[in-house]
């Protein structure tokens, strides 16, 4: 299996406080890998390292075999798209938000393209002219994912995008992730707090704690973890 992203002994610290320690591992091309772990495990930091919003203090990250430092930051971020946890919207309509990635490149998104994107994430064309402030949490997340897809990323990073959603919306987003993975062949790395989601949607899972990978492998590992800490985490004894 080819590595879409390869971490080699990656270390990241802020003010000498280690956030990630000696991370080594691969995210496989075309697969959905879920990242789980208690708060403060360093999951979001790890995602930000993947699309160059942060750089490691030591160690190397390779994207499709090429050192991340050899990528132009703008090109890298278009290639490795990221949907942020809070799904921030710029002021204005849904269309304005969808058009943003191309707008940043001095190009225009046609209304038809925007409608197709909305359809891909399960929203109707009528949402195009809706003010982004009027969207529900689930709708915001869908628009946020659609907006990230405008750049046609090969790798998609999703940061706890279902954490504040009701069960119906969570299920819709799960289906959407599977659809994007299968329809576009996009490699997906998804931080989730919901272990059931991690098992059903993810092919692979990394369990992180205090900046380290404690256990990794097929997502089924969460059903019978080998590591005692992971067992405790799965039982809900660690937050």
């Amino acid at each position, binding site marked *: 299996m080819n590595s879409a992203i390869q971490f080699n002994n990656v270390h990241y610290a802020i003010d000498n406080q280690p956030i990630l320690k000696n991370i080594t591992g691969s995210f496989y091309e075309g697969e959905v890998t879920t990242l789980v772990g208690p708060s403060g495990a360093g999951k979001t930091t790890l995602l930000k390292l993947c699309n160059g*919003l942060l750089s490691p203090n030591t160690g190397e990250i390779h994207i499709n075999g090429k050192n991340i430092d050899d990528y132009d*930051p703008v090109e890298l*971020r*278009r290639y490795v798209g*990221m949907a942020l946890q809070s799904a921030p919207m710029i002021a204005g309509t849904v269309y304005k938000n969808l058009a943003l990635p191309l707008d*940043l*490149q001095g190009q225009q998104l046609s209304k038809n393209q925007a409608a197709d994107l909305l359809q891909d994430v399960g929203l109707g064309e009528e949402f195009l002219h809706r003010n982004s402030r009027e969207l529900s949490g689930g709708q915001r997340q869908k628009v946020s994912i659609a*907006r*990230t897809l405008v*750049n046609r990323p090969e790798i998609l990073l999703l940061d706890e995008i279902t954490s504040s959603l009701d069960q119906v919306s969570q299920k819709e987003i799960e289906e959407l992730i599977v659809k994007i993975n299968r329809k576009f062949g996009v490699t997906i790395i998804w931080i989730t707090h919901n272990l059931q989601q991690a098992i059903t949607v993810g092919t692979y899972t990394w369990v992180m704690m205090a900046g380290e990978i404690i256990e990794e492998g097929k997502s089924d590992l969460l059903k019978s973890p080998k590591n005692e800490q992971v067992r405790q985490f799965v039982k809900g004894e660690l937050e």
Partner: protein
Amino acid sequence: MSPIALIFSLIFVLIPIVLSKTFNLGLEKDTAIAVVRSIIQLFVVGYVLKFVFDSESIIYIFLMVGVMIVAATLNARKKGAAIKGITWKIAVTLIFVEVLTQSILLGFNITPHTAQYIIPISGMMVGNGMVLAILFLNRFIAETEARQDQTELILSLGGTPKQAIHTQLITSIKASMIPTIESQKTIGLVQLPGMMSGQIIAGASPVQAVQFQLLVLFLLLTAASVTCVMLGFLSYRTMFNQRMQLVWGR
């Protein structure tokens, strides 16, 4: 004004002190310090200005303007301490504003080439630039903190640092310029400007006082816009590193 008249003017100092004492405002000490400081500072400035005007030396003019810029920079930088290299950014901005405005004034013979004009006008430009720099930095830092998510969003979508900070920059520039523009809209209707009032009291013709006041108002518009725009564009770059990562607050 005679020295006796000046002494009588201290009645206006006694009134706030008595009021503070009567209503337990606790402002007597601060008021007294402010009065003593203003008396000393203004008399010192008065004598220094007399010396500089009499000497007609360009070196003293440069020295006076230099002191103004240093004092204004040191005062304004406190508001932007979180921005890397803010001291030199403010200093460069104020120097640029001063050079630009004086070049136009002197180059087009709008004002005479004497210390009597150069120093007071420089004081107004630098002082106004300082206030604008403080207003701008206050707002820019607040906007940057409040919209960190948006900055990160645009970077994550492949935007450049300039695109990521554009809204915050423009909002801050506009917000800090509004007081200058708004106060000019009501000038003469709500209040007579201090400089114009001073000239009229000193016996100048009101029409001539108005002409000079208009000149100052136009200069202040330039000082305000150049200060905000230049400081903004100098400041935002240091919030990002060469890998186009937001390093602000980290």
